[in-house]
């Protein structure tokens, strides 16, 4: 019988237990699979499970451990967002369009985790093609928030966030185009990081908006995230925007003191408007903690950040309309049964294969790129994008990290925002500018609001400053225990 507490054991501790043979990877992986079996009927966090395949990887990991060739993650089961292609796994991206797509190759992220000896626990549910902030656009039905199954988990990486929150997995990969790692991490009470654009290869990560898409990861605490980034980050020639930099150990500076850290507080993020009182209050408490750790706070201005949502809803749909033109019902994916001619085949396959939000974004993208509107919308949005980037550059001249809310409120209810797409889009008001600028961003648990729903704190770093972000998050987590709180449902 396994004697490990799956609720609050860090990856480092799990690894230690595996290497000292206190537990085998098969036992550990089976224990998580059992939890999934028990709780996922309620949560719907996974789209695909394949225990046999998962346990084969666990056995391989055990053999590797026995040969004393284990790395820091060998034998640890990890859930992967269903946006990452993994050989032999159904890879749906939350869409009917890809409901029959078994990936013939591995994403770079999957290759890296496989090489590290982790086991793929399953593929997690998500908003269709990562377009959504509540997981309600998934073809496979919405994920439920483990803190209250009547609330959304956030999106688009809602399945990954819920799985980690309910401790169905010790960690899960995710992606973030406008907040899809940070917002669900906040709403589910877990830690998540979106690295600098280009840090994690997009190869085999199904494309939504290529100039913004970035892979990342979620886990209970920052120290776990640092270990995971050590595996995920790295150059890949197959992604033309992959960044070539020397390898970095993201755990190296975790234990440094925070003394002298300059925390930038952006005026627009604290203006009150749109930020709920409970989120505001959690932020105040967090600032108090940081000051007691020796950090100083400075006010910074991000004057154009209010425009980030409209900029995003020009650029992301434009890129999406181009990226998703590949789904034609001919080479792979959903194909309409009856078609009169080739155009009819395209139009019907896409009408049947895509859900309403994906259609809205493709149509919006077609609109802003069409003749007569291209200059007024697309180029104008790209100009304002530059202004947003310049704002951040100016702010980082005065501070080391920027701190603010991740989301304006705690988790909202199902169907609360589905009838008005713009209301849903505004859920990402504090996260989107970070993608537009290509900066690294994190969300960490920072308290609870009404009805015991988690509040997330966002940390934004300068380019390539992930190690510092993780350090700032880790120090906070050494003196708080919000990240150790587990939803009551996870104890059932």
């Amino acid at each position, binding site marked *: 019988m396994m004697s490990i507490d799956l609720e609050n054991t860090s990856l480092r501790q799990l690894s230690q237990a595996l290497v000292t043979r206190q537990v085998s990877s098969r036992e550990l992986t089976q224990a998580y699979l059992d939890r999934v079996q028990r709780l996922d009927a309620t949560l719907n966090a996974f789209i695909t499970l394949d225990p046999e395949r998962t346990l084969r990887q666990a056995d391989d990991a055990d053999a590797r451990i026995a040969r004393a060739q284990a790395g820091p993650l060998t034998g640890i089961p990890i859930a992967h967002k269903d946006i990452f292609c993994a050989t032999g796994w159904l890879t749906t991206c939350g869409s009917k369009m890809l409901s029959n*797509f*078994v990936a*013939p*190759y591995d994403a770079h992220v999957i290759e890296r985790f496989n090489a590290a000896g982790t086991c793929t626990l399953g593929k997690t549910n998500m908003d269709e093609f990562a377009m959504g902030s509540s997981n309600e656009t998934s073809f496979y039905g919405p994920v439920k928030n483990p803190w209250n199954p009547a609330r959304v988990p956030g999106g688009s990486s809602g399945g990954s966030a819920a799985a980690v929150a309910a401790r169905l997995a010790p960690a899960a990969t995710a992606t973030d185009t406008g907040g899809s790692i940070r917002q669900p991490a906040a709403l589910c009470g877990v830690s998540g990081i979106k690295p*600098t*654009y*280009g840090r994690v290869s997009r190869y085999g990560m199904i494309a939504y908006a290529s*100039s913004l898409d970035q892979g990342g990861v979620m886990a209970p605490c920052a120290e776990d995230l640092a270990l995971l980034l050590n595996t995920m980050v790295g150059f890949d020639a197959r992604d*033309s*925007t992959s*960044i070539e930099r020397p390898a970095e150990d993201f755990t190296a500076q975790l234990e440094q003191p925070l003394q002298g850290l300059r925390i930038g507080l952006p005026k627009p993020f604290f203006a009150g408007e749109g930020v709920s009182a409970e989120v505001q209050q959690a932020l105040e408490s967090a600032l108090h903690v940081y000051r007691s750790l020796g950090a100083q706070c400075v006010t910074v201005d991000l004057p*154009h950040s209010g*425009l980030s*949502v*409209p900029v995003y*809803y*020009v650029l992301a749909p434009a890129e999406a*309309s181009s990226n998703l*033109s590949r789904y*034609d*019902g*001919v*080479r*792979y994916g*959903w*194909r309409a049964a009856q078609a009169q*001619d*080739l*155009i*009819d*085949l*395209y*139009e019907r396959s*896409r*009408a049947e294969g*895509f859900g*309403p939000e994906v*259609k*809205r974004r*493709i*149509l919006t993208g077609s*609109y802003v790129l*069409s003749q007569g509107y291209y200059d007024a*919308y697309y*180029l*104008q*949005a790209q*100009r*304002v*994008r*530059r202004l947003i*980037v310049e704002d951040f550059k100016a702010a980082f001249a005065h501070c080391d990290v920027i701190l603010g809310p991740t989301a304006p409120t705690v988790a909202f209810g199902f169907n609360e925002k589905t009838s*008005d*797409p*713009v209301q849903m889009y505004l859920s990402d008001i504090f996260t989107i500018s970070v993608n*537009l*600028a*290509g*900066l690294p961003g994190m969300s960490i648990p920072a308290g609870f609001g009404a009805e015991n729903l988690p509040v997330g704190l966002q940390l934004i770093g300068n*380019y390539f400053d992930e190690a510092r972000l993780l350090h700032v998050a880790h120090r906070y987590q050494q003196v708080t225990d919000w990240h150790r709180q587990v939803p009551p449902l996870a104890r059932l």
Partner: protein
Amino acid sequence: MPLNDTDLKRLARLARIRLEPQELASLAPQFAGILDLIQQLQAVPTQGIEPLAHALDLEQRLRADEVTEADGRALFQPLAPEMEQGLYLVPQVIE
């Protein structure tokens, strides 16, 4: 600046998505809201600002002009909804 049915149908044709009449009806007000949102950008003064396509100033990487990938037909073609003798099948396009 709301779009009428004709505009939406034109967009749907450009995007190669067939829209049913009831979809058009629900899309019209939603699209109006989205256009209102992105309309905000028109008021921003941007004279002399260069459009930004990519946040990091990256240079296009080049590689030697050599074949680097193996033939993947056997791997990829079985994914096709309809295939025959190594060919992807589509409705007849030439009489």
